[in-house]
C-alpha cells in the first residue's frame, strides 16, 4: 500500500509541476520593449520599410513589429485600449471614422495623432502608340464589372459602353487579386464608377453585400487580363498593344514616361500635382495613427515617428517614393511633421 501512495504522490507532484510550468509561462506578460504596429495591408509595405530603416539607424532599439490586419481590424485592435497589450500605431488606407475615434476614447486612448504619410495613386495608362483615350470612372466600371449596375455584362468594345468612345475591344491589363493595387483599383475605380448611379448608392444603404458584389466584381471573360506580379510586363504589353489599357501604381507611370502615357479620368490627367492635390479621382491619402500616451511609454516610438516623417523617407526622392508612395505636397508634409512632433491629438471635429 505504501508503494501506491508514494507513486501516487509522485504522479500528483509531476502533474502539479507541469501545471505550475504552464502557469509560469502564461504569466510572462512583461511590458513590451518594442513598437507594435497593426493595420492596412496597403500601408504595410511602406511601414515595413520605415521600420527596417528605423532599426538599422537605431540599433539600440528592438525592431518594430508590423502586422497586416486590414485597416478596419487594425483600428479595432488599436482602439481596444492603452497599455503594453495594445498596438502603438495603426496603419490606415482611409481616414478613421468618428465612431472609431469615439471607441478609442471610450477605451482610454484619449490622444490619437493622425499623420498623413502620403498618397496612393492608381492610374490607368496606355501605350504611346495608341490614339489618346479619355475615360470616366463610369466608363471603366461599366466596361469591367461582372454585372454593371446589376445587369448582365454585354459590352465587347468601348463603344458599347459609351458611344463617344472608339469601337476598339475592351482589354485592360491589371494586377491580380492578391495585389494591393487591385484593392485600390476596386475601391477607387469600380466602386467609384458604380456609385455614379444614385440607385447603386441607395442600394448600399439597403443591401450592402449586394452593393459590394455589383460594384466590386470584375468580369472574368478575358476583358480584364491579370498580368501577374511583373509590372514591367504590363508596360511592355502596352508598348506592343496600342489599344490595351493598363492599371499601375503612379510611380510606374513616372518611371516609364517614354513608352506609356496616362489616360485622363473625367478629364483630369494623372500628374504628380493632380494626384497630390486629389483632383485625380483615383488618389487617396494614406495615414498612420499613433497613441500619444504611448509615445512617452514605449522606447523608440518618438524616433520611429521622426524616421517616418523625415524627408529621406516620405519626401520627394525618398525611399518611400521608390516603393511607390506619392509624396504629399510640401505644406501637407510640414503640417503633419509638426503634428507628429507636437503630438497634436485628433478631435471629433477634425473627422467631420
Amino acid at each position, binding site marked *: 500500500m505504501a508503494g501506491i501512495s508514494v507513486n501516487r504522490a509522485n504522479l500528483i507532484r509531476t502533474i502539479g509541476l*507541469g501545471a505550475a510550468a504552464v502557469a509560469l509561462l502564461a504569466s510572462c*506578460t512583461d511590458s513590451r520593449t518594442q513598437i507594435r504596429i497593426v493595420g492596412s495591408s496597403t500601408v504595410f509595405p511602406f511601414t515595413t520599410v520605415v521600420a527596417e530603416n528605423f532599426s538599422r*539607424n537605431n540599433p539600440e532599439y528592438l525592431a518594430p513589429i*508590423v*502586422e497586416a490586419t486590414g485597416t478596419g481590424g487594425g483600428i479595432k485592435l488599436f482602439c481596444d485600449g492603452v497599455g503594453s497589450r495594445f498596438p502603438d500605431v495603426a496603419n490606415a488606407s482611409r481616414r478613421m471614422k468618428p465612431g472609431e475615434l469615439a471607441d478609442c476614447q471610450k477605451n482610454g486612448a484619449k490622444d490619437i495623432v493622425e499623420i498623413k504619410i502620403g498618397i496612393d495613386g492608381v492610374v490607368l495608362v496606355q501605350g504611346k502608340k495608341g490614339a489618346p483615350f479619355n475615360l470616366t470612372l463610369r466608363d471603366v466600371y461599366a466596361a469591367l464589372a461582372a454585372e454593371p449596375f446589376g445587369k448582365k455584362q454585354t459590352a465587347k468594345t468601348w463603344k458599347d459602353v459609351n458611344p463617344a468612345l472608339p469601337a476598339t475591344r475592351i482589354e485592360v491589363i491589371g494586377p491580380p487579386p492578391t495585389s494591393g493595387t487591385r484593392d485600390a483599383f476596386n475601391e477607387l475605380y469600380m466602386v467609384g464608377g458604380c456609385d455614379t448611379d444614385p440607385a447603386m448608392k441607395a442600394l448600399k444603404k439597403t443591401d450592402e453585400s449586394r452593393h459590394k458584389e455589383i460594384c466590386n466584381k470584375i468580369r472574368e471573360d478575358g476583358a480584364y487580363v491579370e498580368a501577374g*506580379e511583373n509590372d*514591367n510586363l504590363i508596360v511592355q504589353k502596352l*508598348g506592343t498593344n496600342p489599344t490595351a489599357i493598363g492599371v499601375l501604381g503612379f510611380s510606374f507611370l513616372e518611371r516609364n514616361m517614354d*513608352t506609356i502615357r496616362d489616360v485622363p479620368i473625367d478629364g483630369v490627367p494623372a500628374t504628380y500635382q493632380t494626384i497630390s492635390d486629389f483632383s485625380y479621382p483615383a488618389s487617396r491619402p494614406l495615414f498612420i495613427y499613433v497613441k500619444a500616451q504611448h509615445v512617452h511609454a514605449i522606447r523608440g516610438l518618438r524616433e520611429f515617428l521622426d524616421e517616418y516623417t523625415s524627408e529621406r523617407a516620405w519626401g520627394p526622392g525618398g525611399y518611400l517614393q521608390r516603393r511607390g508612395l506619392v509624396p504629399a505636397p510640401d505644406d501637407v508634409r510640414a503640417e503633419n511633421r509638426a503634428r507628429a512632433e507636437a503630438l497634436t491629438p485628433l478631435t471629433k471635429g477634425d473627422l467631420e
Partner: protein
Amino acid sequence: MTDRLSTLDAVTPTVWSSPQMQARIRRRYRQERLFKYTGIAALALAAGFLLFLMTSVISDGWTSFKQTEISVPVVFDPVRLGVTAEQAKADPTLLRRANFPGVLADSVAKAHGDEVEIVSDGGWLALREAVEADPALIGKTVPMWVIATSNIDQLAKGRIDLDADEGDRPVNDAEVAAWKRLEAKGDIRTVLNTTFLTSADSVDPELAGIWGALKGSFLTAIITLLISFPVGVLAAIYLEEFAPKNRWTDLIEVSINNLAAVPSIIFGLLGLAVFLNTMNMPRSAPVVGGLTLALMTLPVIVIASRAAIKAVPPSIRDAALGIGASPVQVVTHHVLPLALPGMLTGTILGMARALGETAPLLMIGMRAFLTSVPQGFTQPATALPVQIFIWSDNVSRGFVEKTSGAIIVLLLFLLMINSLAIYLRNRFEVRW
C-alpha cells in the same frame, strides 16, 4: 451417388486439365497481376509527385543559400561620415547616427559608377559593423565585399533570361550592362548566404533571412511538445487503465475523436479568444502559438497513445498484478515503457502537423513583419510555414527563391525532428 458426382463434375469441373479450370486459373493470375500493377502504379504516382515537388523546390531554392557580393574600395571619409576616428573611439554610440549610407554610395559611385543601383539598401550595415569593431578604419580606404541588390544577385545566379526583351524581364539593360562590367573586372563573387541563415525578415530579398522564423518555429514546438505530450499521455493512461467504462467516458472518447478532426483554424480562434482576449497573453508570442498548437495536437496524441496502450498484451498486466504490483506500478513499470514507442509515433505525427500549420498562427498574430530574431518565448515571433506564406505573397522577384529556400529549411527541420523521434522510439522499443 455416382449420378450426383458426375452431374457436379459437369457443372463445376475441378479437374485441373479441364478448360474451364484453366480459364479460371488464368483469370485469377490476371487479377493478381493487375492488383500488383495497380499498387506499383499508385506508388510510382506518389513517388512522381514527390520527385516533382522536391526537384522544383530544390532547383528554385538552392540558390537562396548563396549570395552575391560586390567588391567596393570603401573610403571612410570622416567629413562625409560626420565622425572622426577619435570621436568614435571616445563615444562609439556616435557611429549609430553616422552617415554610412552616404559613404557607401560615394564609394560605389567612384568605383563602379552610379547609373544603376548595384549594392543593397542595407549594404552599409557591414560598414558600420566593421567600424564599430575597429574605429581606426575612419580616414582609411578599405576594400570590402558588400551585398548586391536583388536584381544583380539574380543576374549573377543566372536566374534571368537574358535573351528576353527588356520589358519581359525584371531587370533593365542598364543593370545587365553594370553586371557584365563587374564580371569582367572580377569585382563580383558568390558566397555562402550567411544573411539568409542568420537573420530575420526584411523588405529586401537580399537581406531577408530564415533564422528568425526557424527559431520561432522551434520555440513554438518546444511549448507544444511540453504541454501536449505529458497531458496527452496522462489522459490516455487514465482513460485506458483507470477510468470506469460508463456514459461519461464514452462521451469523452467521442469528443476526443471529434476534436482530432476539427479544422485547425477553429483552434486558432479558440487561442485568440482564450489566450489573448481572456488571459491577456502577448500577441504574436511563441508561447501562445505553442499553447494553441498543443490544443490542436492533444487529441492526436491521446488517440495514438490509447491505441499503443491497448496493444500491450493483457498477459503482462495480469502477470504483474499476479506477483503483487499495484495498478500504478503496473502502468509505470510495464505498460508505459511498452507503449512508449507507439506513443512517440503518435506524437511525431501530431508535431509534424503542428509544425506545418499556418492558419491558427495567423489568428494569434504570428503573421507579423519582424526584422529581429525572437529572443524568448514571449517575444514576438513568426513560424516557418507562415514565413513561407508571407514570402510567397511578396511581389519582389528575389523572394521566389527565398520562398523555396524556406521550404527546404522547413523540410530539413521536419526531417531532423522526425529522425530524433525515430531514434528515441527505437531506443525504447521492447520486444516480447
